[in-house]
């Protein structure tokens, strides 16, 4: 296969920028696509070229296969990187890219279709001795049949869209009555998010951990795992904090889990980077959840502990190159934790908070990485996922990584929209997270962020002082000020130490 010299990135936000960064390092030309809502977005500015593909709603832009392929032809790129979300797990998109003559940076269409179909995926991995959770994924989707199956499987019970992913549209019910009440909404959300109201029912494992295995398969049949990530801290099945290694695994369990991850991927004839997700219960039993046939949001923690660039490896695999290492050569070092920064208001039920970012200051410092899709002046559109940046910190131990991440989140400044920054600090400082006693429901244990307390009189004075230093502004432009300590301007006496 010829080398890839140019890549169109069929995505937006931080992941588009992440892919651009690696392409640049490899000397690959990048082409961004964007919707009308993203005309000013960072990924458009950072790419070597950019093409408008449609209106703001993703169904009219980032989900339009025809428009993306048209842009790829016009820009005459060699390859297409799908990022995560949007079309990244769409088998028809992967096929359409290939038949239009573009290298799709990811697995083949039928692999996406197999793993995207929860039922087929479970059946397939079971053949390879990978354990699955008891459930129902039959064709009969009538109310009566679903209710009967729900009683058979038992409560608590999870309802999820068969075509879903990323936690959207999933519901846990605790009784037959609750099940009946939630069912119509589950169907509606599944239909609006994934274009199908076909649902899957599953036993809900109480207090499970979410542990996943990163795998990498080249086109010559060779595959390795890149160890696990634990993503147990979740809100409504959306990951909030991710880390590697998992404190719940000893050497033996890690070895068995990672082997199951490789087996599940091999069962699908997998190529490129993928992630096999498992539920791990308190007794050390694990069950296959699903396979994500793409790069994950949380891939940086693996990169930090292994010292590898997963996007580069994805591109090299797509070029037909063999994996550059053997399993035994992969030895993770230390610990890494990622926090997802969302445009949402933790004081108002985590409601999304789109709008213009008036000031953005990423954190700095050793062992800190910030993958951001925004900067000062960026607009966070209401149409897309609320995640705007990821802050990742590493250290020799979990506690060192945790401390570094807390410091980084304190240094991070976001003004103009609400974010979950303070919520992330609250979780990282909480007893359950500190001790590592986490599970997918741990946020209910940690509780909500304390009510919005008024600032102290001193802080109020500092705010007004900074405001007075800012040039006056009207609605059109924002004034930003920071009170910088300036000893030369101080009236109180001081001396050099």
């Amino acid at each position, binding site marked *: 296969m010829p080398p890839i010299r140019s890549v169109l990135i069929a995505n937006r936000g931080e992941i588009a920028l992440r892919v651009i960064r690696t392409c640049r390092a490899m000397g690959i030309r990048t082409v961004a696509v964007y919707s009308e809502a993203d005309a000013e977005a960072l990924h458009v500015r950072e790419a070597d070229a950019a093409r408008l593909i449609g209106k703001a709603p993703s169904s009219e832009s980032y989900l339009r296969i025809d428009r993306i392929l048209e842009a790829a032809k016009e820009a005459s790129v060699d390859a297409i990187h799908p990022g995560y979300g949007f079309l990244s797990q769409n088998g028809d998109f992967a096929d359409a890219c290939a038949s239009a003559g573009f290298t799709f940076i990811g697995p083949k269409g039928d692999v996406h279709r197999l793993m995207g179909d929860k039922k087929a995926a479970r059946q397939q991995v079971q053949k390879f001795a990978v354990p699955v959770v008891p459930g129902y994924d039959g064709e009969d989707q009538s109310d009566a049949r679903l209710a009967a199956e729900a009683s058979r499987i038992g409560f608590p019970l999870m309802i999820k869209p068969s075509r879903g992913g990323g936690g959207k549209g999933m519901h846990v019910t605790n009784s037959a009555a609750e099940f009946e009440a939630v069912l119509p909404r589950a169907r509606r959300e599944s239909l609006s*998010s994934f274009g199908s109201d076909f649902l899957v029912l599953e036993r809900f494992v109480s207090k499970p951990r979410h542990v996943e295995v990163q795998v990498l398969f080249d086109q010559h049949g060779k595959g390795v795992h890149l160890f696990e990530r634990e993503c147990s801290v979740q809100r409504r099945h959306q990951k909030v904090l991710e880390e590697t290694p998992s404190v719940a695994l000893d050497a033996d369990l890690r070895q068995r889990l990672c082997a199951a991850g490789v087996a599940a991927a091999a069962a699908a004839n997998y190529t490129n980077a993928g992630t096999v997700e498992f539920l791990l219960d308190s007794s050390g039993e694990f069950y296959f959840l699903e396979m994500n046939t793409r790069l994950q949001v949380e891939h940086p923690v693996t990169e930090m502990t292994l010292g590898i660039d997963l996007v580069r490896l994805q591109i090299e695999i797509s070029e037909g190159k063999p994996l550059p290492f053997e399993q035994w050569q992969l030895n993770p070092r230390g610990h890494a934790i990622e926090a997802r920064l969302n445009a949402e208001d933790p004081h108002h039920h985590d*409601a999304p908070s789109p709008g213009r970012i008036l000031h953005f200051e990423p954190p700095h410092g050793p062992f800190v990485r910030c993958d951001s899709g925004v900067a000062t002046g960026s607009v966070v559109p209401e149409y897309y*996922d609320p995640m705007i940046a990821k802050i990742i910190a590493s250290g020799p131990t979990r506690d060192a990584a945790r401390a570094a991440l807390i410091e980084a989140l304190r240094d991070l400044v976001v003004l103009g929209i609400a974010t979950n920054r*303070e919520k992330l600090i609250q979780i990282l400082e909480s007893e359950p997270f500190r001790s590592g006693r986490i599970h997918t429901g741990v946020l209910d244990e940690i509780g909500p962020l304390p009510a919005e307390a008024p600032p102290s009189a001193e802080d109020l004075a500092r705010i007004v002082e900074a405001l007075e230093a800012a040039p006056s502004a009207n609605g059109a432009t924002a004034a930003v000020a920071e009170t910088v300590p300036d000893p030369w301007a101080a009236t*109180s006496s001081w001396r050099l130490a």
Partner: protein
Amino acid sequence: MRVKVAGHVHNVVRKSATEFEVDGVPVSAGSASVHATRHTRAFVAREGDRVFAQVGGRNYRLTVMTRAAAEAAEHAPMQGELEAPMPGRVTRVAVAVGDAVKRGQELIVVEAMKMENALVAPTDGVVRSLAVKVGDMVAPGPALVVIEPDPESAS
């Protein structure tokens, strides 16, 4: 300067280069000292009357107020007014003007970023006004629905 934050109006007056009076009590802003650190540094951004601030690791939203507005705010009655939690599209309206509603009842659903956010009645009462219909784009600020609390129900 009068600012409203966390539901309260405060009067902040500069007295000298480093001294302020907050609601009549003298305080030092402290940022002009050699010991000022990240924890006492204030970052602010102002857009019209709206102020976003981050200081001491905390974020605040403030409103700069005129004297008249500050005085009026002190006497504002709390009605059962519901505003949109975020900009979005109204996907469902489950009540009409005149309907009796129970506390916790779903009134309106606003969808943004593919999430449904239900606005529920804060109290038992009657729908006095309704300002939206399905398909409307809404943003925080104006009341979408006003509930007249049932005088017999203590919330």
